[in-house]
């Protein structure tokens, strides 16, 4: 059965629109593009440049996932090793940093789940000095002021990290990416392959959990 002229015309218009969209599409500007290209060609020094640029942030992210320096060190190295091995599969559709943090988030989440299954966080338990927290100030201290405030600030940091440890993996990754690493919702949605709305609602729930934890300890 032959299609009607309207259907054919409609189809042609659709193809034309797609072609126009494709012609106007430009991949995201990526400052690491050239360095990544060199890496793919087998230049190890180029990869070292990328490591040098990102390892502090990746390490910090790893630490926030596992809450332990030694584990974070291993996890961060694991993340870079995975990136190095999979660099040939990086198609440049997103920024290298987005791709790297996507690997980091996935690995971090998996490591967190693994450690949780093995009772790692239960064994760690609440950190020392839970009783001392009773004396902590209601207001969040300014860590640049006197030693007392500095100590209180350290304690708050510990409480917040514990609150992060208690979060569900899906909430945890968003809190880390948004509130700690400062990625935009758009970037987070792309990294986690989630709609922006879902990203925001998960972040809100995660923040509410942290809020309750802080409130419970500090009030």
């Amino acid at each position: 059965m032959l299609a009607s002229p309207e259907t054919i015309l409609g189809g042609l218009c659709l193809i034309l629109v797609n072609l126009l969209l494709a012609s106007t599409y430009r991949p995201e500007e990526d400052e690491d593009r050239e360095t990544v290209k060199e890496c793919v060609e087998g230049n190890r020094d180029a990869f070292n440049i990328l490591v040098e640029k990102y390892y502090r942030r990746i390490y910090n992210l790893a630490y926030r996932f596992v809450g332990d320096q030694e584990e974070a060190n291993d996890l961060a190295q694991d993340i870079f090793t995975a990136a190095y091995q999979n660099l040939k599969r990086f198609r440049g559709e997103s920024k290298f940093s987005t791709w790297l943090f996507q690997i980091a988030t996935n690995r971090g989440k998996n490591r967190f789940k693994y450690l949780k299954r093995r009772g790692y966080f239960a064994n760690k338990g609440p950190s020392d000095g839970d009783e001392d927290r009773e004396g902590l100030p209601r207001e969040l201290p300014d860590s640049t002021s006197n030693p007392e405030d500095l100590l209180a600030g350290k304690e708050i940091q510990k409480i917040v990290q514990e609150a992060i440890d208690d979060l569900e993996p899906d909430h945890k990754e968003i809190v880390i990416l948004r509130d700690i690493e400062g990625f935009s919702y758009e970037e987070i949605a792309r990294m986690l392959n989630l709609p922006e709305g879902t990203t925001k609602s998960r972040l809100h729930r995660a923040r509410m959990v942290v809020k309750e934890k802080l409130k419970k300890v500090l009030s």
Partner: protein
Amino acid sequence: MSECDQISGMFLELHEGSVDSETRSRCYDHMNKCSCCREEFQWYSDAVKALAGLERVSPPRDFMVHLDRRLDAVSSRSWLDFLKDLTLTAPRMPLPAGMAALFCIVLIGYSLFRQPPVELARHSETPVSAEVATAEEGGKSIAPAPRRATITTMGGDGALAPAYYSSLSNPSTNLPRIPLTTPESGMSGAQAAHNLLPTVADRLGADNLTVVSSRPEEAQELLKRILPGLQGTVVREDLRPSARERLVRIIIPPDAYGSLTRALVDHGEIESGAGAGVDPPKPVQEQGNGILLYVRFVKPQ
């Protein structure tokens, strides 16, 4: 849903200032009246502030050194690891690798199928060999044993043709020195030498055949029927009444030997050689482009 719940559901937008002015003023109006919501929002803001204010943890000093070692280890992977990745890890590789493996298997299978059965037999181990009863090394006497050969068959349509085994068909066989007489068998040295020397049959991988069948007449008729299809001809037919056996002398192309045995095996048990008797058939000979051989049909004992 109470208004407080609605307000608490909008903490994220309120904190980030991503609500329109009307909603914003409505929320703040509510919080001015409701201390609970006001306090909750304050805690929410504090939590966000605390999260954002977490200190950045510095990696250990030797981080880069350890990572470098780890990357070195990854870079210097063995070819076994490469193969493992090729077949297991890389998402796009298993399919081409599998296809290549399948192609290789089909190719090997096809080449084996196309190989003449006799060739197959020659390449395989020799289950029965012409044996020398006693070997002479450094002057010891040698007595050649009677030559034995076996045809093994695999029945059914399309099965491989009977495989023929004979160590004498191997041209590399080192023949021992033949004595003049062989005390055990009573054969003359010449006869023994004749049994040991490579014959045309050995070279071609064919031999005279004996078909042991309960209905030898039918088997003989079958032979005559299939010969034209094999480009072969009957040269002579003999009935040997004393021995109750039929002897047919035929010429076939050398490559038709497998097909011949495959057809005959459906009509009886096949043995190599056409028996001894009073007038033993001669060994297989070359006749033009074909081979001349005897097929003996006998009833089972």
